[in-house]
């Protein structure tokens, strides 16, 4: 067992978990934040993307112990009270979702994409989201959402 201490959505949390607990398991099961989803278990689909110290990361690819001392932000931690983060708002308004299962990871990846590149071209968005799989939308409205989100984020 390992005692893991980290900042989760701005709050200090700690828990004693088996050494090999994945960050996503820590978030979903130990901390009960189920907005972060597991789609493939093998670091490919992107449904579990969170931010670790500001960088987007597939949380099934990192041990919870590896995030010791880090600041972890999940989909539940990006809204400002009742008002959605601009990228959340953009996905909402632009029909950038259908079943919604990939959406949290998609939004988290998109936020980092725009933070790194405030005015992404359509091609940059398409390539930047290659690590996030969506089976429903055909990606058209996802790209549109990210473009709108980038504008709303002040790009």
């Amino acid at each position, binding site marked *: 067992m390992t005692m893991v201490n980290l900042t989760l959505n701005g709050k200090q949390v700690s828990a004693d978990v*088996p050494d090999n607990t994945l960050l996503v398991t820590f978030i979903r099961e130990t901390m*009960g*934040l*189920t*907005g*972060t*989803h*597991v*789609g*493939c*278990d*093998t670091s*490919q*689909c992107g*449904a579990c993307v969170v931010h670790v110290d500001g960088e987007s990361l597939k949380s099934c690819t990192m041990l919870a112990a590896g995030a010791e001392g880090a600041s972890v932000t*999940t*989909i*539940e931690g990006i*809204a400002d009270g009742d008002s*959605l983060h601009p990228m*959340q*708002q953009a*996905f*909402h*308004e632009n*029909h950038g*979702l*259908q*079943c*919604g*299962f*990939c*959406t*949290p990871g998609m*939004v988290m990846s998109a936020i980092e994409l725009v933070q790194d590149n405030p005015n992404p071209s*359509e*091609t940059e*968005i*398409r*390539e930047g*989201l*290659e690590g*996030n*799989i*969506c*089976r*429903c*939308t*055909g*990606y*058209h*409205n*996802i*790209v549109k959402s990210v473009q709108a989100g980038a504008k709303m984020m002040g790009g």
Partner: protein
Amino acid sequence: MAGKGIAGDIRTAREHDSAHKHVSGTAVYVDDIRVPDDTLVVLIGQSPHAHARITGIDLSAVAAADGVVAVLTHADIPGRNDCSPVYGDDPILAEDVVSYAGQAVFAIVAETMRAARDALPLAKIDYDPLAAVLTIEDAMRAGSWLGPSVTMESGSPDSALAGAPLHLSGRIEIGGQEHFYLEGQAALAIPGEDGDMTLHCSTQHPSEIQHKAADCLGVPNHAVTVETRRMGGAFGGKESQGSLPALLAALAARRTGRPAKTVYDRDDDFMLTGKRHDFRIDYDVGFDSEGRIQAVLFEQALRCGMSWDLSEAIAARAMCHADNAYHIPHMRVVSHRCRTHTQSNTAFRGFGGPQGMVGIERVIDQVAHHLGLDPLVVRQRNFYPHKFSAGTVKGRTPYGQVVEDCILQDIVPRLAADADYEARRAEIEAFNRTGGMIRRGIALTPVKFGISFNTTFLNQAGALVHVYSDGSVHLNHGGTEMGQGLNTKVAQIVAHEFQIDFDVVKITATNTGKVPNTSATAASSGTDLNGMAAQAAARTIKSRMREFLAEQHQCMPDSVTFANGRVRAGGAQMSFAEAVKACYLGRISLSATGFYATPKIHWDKARSCGRPFYYYAYGAAVTEVATDLLTGENRILRTDILHDVGRSLNPAIDIGQIEGGFVQGAGWLTTEELVWDEAGRLRTHAPSTYKIPACADRPPVFNVALFDDGENTEDTIHKSKAVGEPPLMLAISVLMALSHALESVGDDYPMLDAPATPERLCLAARRLGGPGIALGDK
């Protein structure tokens, strides 16, 4: 708000009802439900063999392992050991024989998934391997069929074929497809008093799981309640195959008295569940020099896997779409339902229709190539007559249904003009004549897709509507939400009926305790059926309100109006909530059920004829592609779509279905390849090896439009048309465009199979005399 209409009315692009929850991470899927601390997990022990006799099972070490609470085999099932949808041929847990690699043999019930996984290798099971039939080829050779082959016939196909001036024949092989819903199969069982069981399932078919769970537990249906709030995608993969995880969770909960959950991880999901059927289609076609097709003989062989599942109806739909949009007077379709020792193939968006359609599109394409005509010209020459044609010239399908609503003559020329098809095709052919390594192709293909379940009795639905005394509305219906926006559309319909804002209508989880004996949400029919049922329920309540308010305000019931959130009766005018309150105080029932059964349809399974479909949905797509002859690497460059949804209930949701369906279909026909090894083990069981389209695969130019003159000729809900499945088949344009790109390589027709992977394209180019060294070419 008076005069401005209601918010979220029908025909508006109201966003998905759960959109806010989706983006904020608060939408609850089965594995997100808060469960009691003592909830157990279920892990399935799978067969490593495709076909073997079980000669010994020793699970004592598994049972003794840390954290394992129980181990289940078929002997632990108190009722019936079956999770099949139709024919009783899918054991929950294998008995004496295993019939595919991946089949469930036992289940571990443990405190944690880690404990279950650690215990899994401790199982000692002895198998005596048996000969396995794996492919369509094997099955056809061995005569391994699930049932007798079925024939559909119209006209005099043999003599018409013999009498036709020109002939071609050929074969196309069409691969299967994994659903890859992002949320894997999942179910949670919570035991209750009196042997009751409550199940939360990610399923398109709560009623079936209720009935199957009751059968396996040995209790009446009333002892089991199944609830489904939403699925993280389904695409047909959760129509029948959600039963196994649900039944195992129920059995575990019954055995232990504790809640239990089965959640497949991705690899297990691939190994355990059936997929879209792969097909082999042989054809003989007779035609004239103008490309008019006089007769076609099709032999469709489909790989069903180890049991029927839904294959009989899927095979029937494949036969019913062997004509697609074309009026072919003489036709025979023979369907061979191959039994193999592989996963039991199942429903997948289109339900056999897409494979049937690929067959005839290949025929048309090859005929055009033979005659040196533009395939679009040949297509248009063979279309079913337009809906305004005289009754005497209307076309009859090979299964006897008269095509009364054909609008391809409106859609196709408009799309061809908007997409500049003719000029682009000329430019592409000129480009290809320059002989470079990159070749481009373009194709326009139509879709005519029959709407209704082929199995007539399934075309029924129920709804339950309560209006509370504050004027808020509780809506429940038998359909399930898998991302397609069904709940949004049905709530729009109810809001429209009462003339209240969308947000006044509360969408609630599908629950077998509220609406019983429902059909699966499938066959694109979710809105057609449940929208009508919900409308009927709302109309019953409205009519009771009208009667009461008319009496109170001394007017005729018919003169009481609901508009823009207001109710007018005689000289009185009040808000909807005030009207409801008055009715409540007047002791008027404000709760009603609604029911709908699709009219006009019938189907004679034995003779493969009837009117299985209430109406047809139409559409067409133009796709341009490029491929590298040396590597087979290929891209979609541009797609234009014009699709008919009748009068759209929600254009944003409809366009989303079209875009998503097209891309999913393009994946099926290009990148998504399922590979089983010689021992019958599926080797592509994760996204590392099985490639569904990613964000950059979407066509860079992607113009999607609704056919704005669309209106259902039948009396469907607000004259709309179903949209779930038909757009997937628009992607046949991708396969045909790739074939066109290869046509420039040599004189022969490319005979391209699907999926058209880089490997297949490369080999086809080589076969046609193109450059490069083909893989495996010695």
